[in-house]
């Protein structure tokens, strides 16, 4: 995983650089076989695409959940306004869930943007 940001420049690397990547990948206990193979082959397009899709789908799922929570909170708000709400705490807990989920998603998104900007700042 630690190799993913620099993996993108593997294509222009010399054989020596590829060798170093391979050693790093083998040494790192968290490095997957795919990363090792990608580093050895000097091409990481497939791996990067898979990871990108993973993150996108994770964020997508997160947003979907947040939207569901927001929707149920909005439903409770309407029930509270129209006098159809049966339990006060029901609304408050649903609203708390929606609020916390939104905060979590924005935090994750901000962290992802930070990481992206960090990579963009890297001198090439």
């Amino acid at each position, binding site marked *: 995983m630690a190799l993913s940001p620099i993996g993108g420049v593997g294509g222009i690397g010399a054989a020596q650089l590829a060798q170093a990547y391979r050693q790093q990948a083998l040494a790192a206990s968290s490095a997957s076989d795919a990363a090792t193979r990608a580093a050895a082959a000097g091409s990481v397009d497939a791996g990067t695409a898979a990871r990108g899709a993973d993150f996108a789908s994770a964020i997508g799922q997160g947003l979907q959940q947040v939207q569901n929570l927001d929707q149920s909170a909005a439903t409770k708000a309407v029930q509270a306004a129209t006098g159809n709400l049966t339990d006060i705490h*029901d609304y408050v807990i649903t609203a708390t869930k929606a609020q916390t989920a939104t905060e979590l998603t924005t935090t994750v998104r901000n962290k992802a943007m930070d990481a992206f900007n960090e990579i963009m700042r890297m001198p090439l």
Partner: protein
Amino acid sequence: MSAVFEALGISGSGMEVHQAWMDAISDNLANVNTVRPTSQAAFQARYVVAAGVEDGSTGLGVTETGIALGDPNGRLVYSPQHPMADSKGYVRLPDIDLGEQMSTMIMAQRGYQANISNVDRVKETYQAAIQMGRG
């Protein structure tokens, strides 16, 4: 729904049952002086029956499984002036002890409040976890 916010839902179930308990006690208190003729059953006190929700793990809170009813015989009170009194001058009152109901109400109220406190604690914990990522 989502396992991330399970603790909030569990506390919510606790609040729901305690609210039902408070409702039942309120009804008992409201009917503490409900008089019936001796030919009918007395007003029966309501007691909430609660049960834990098991999931084979940390549990999923509590649920109200039903309402148990008190003694239909109630207690006979000699009140010959009462319009509902029978030939011997008795009427039937519910077998509800006011003091007991009031102290039970305190338990229900404190239980409800404890669940509210727990929601606040859990929310603070989640937000602390989110703050961790903002540093």
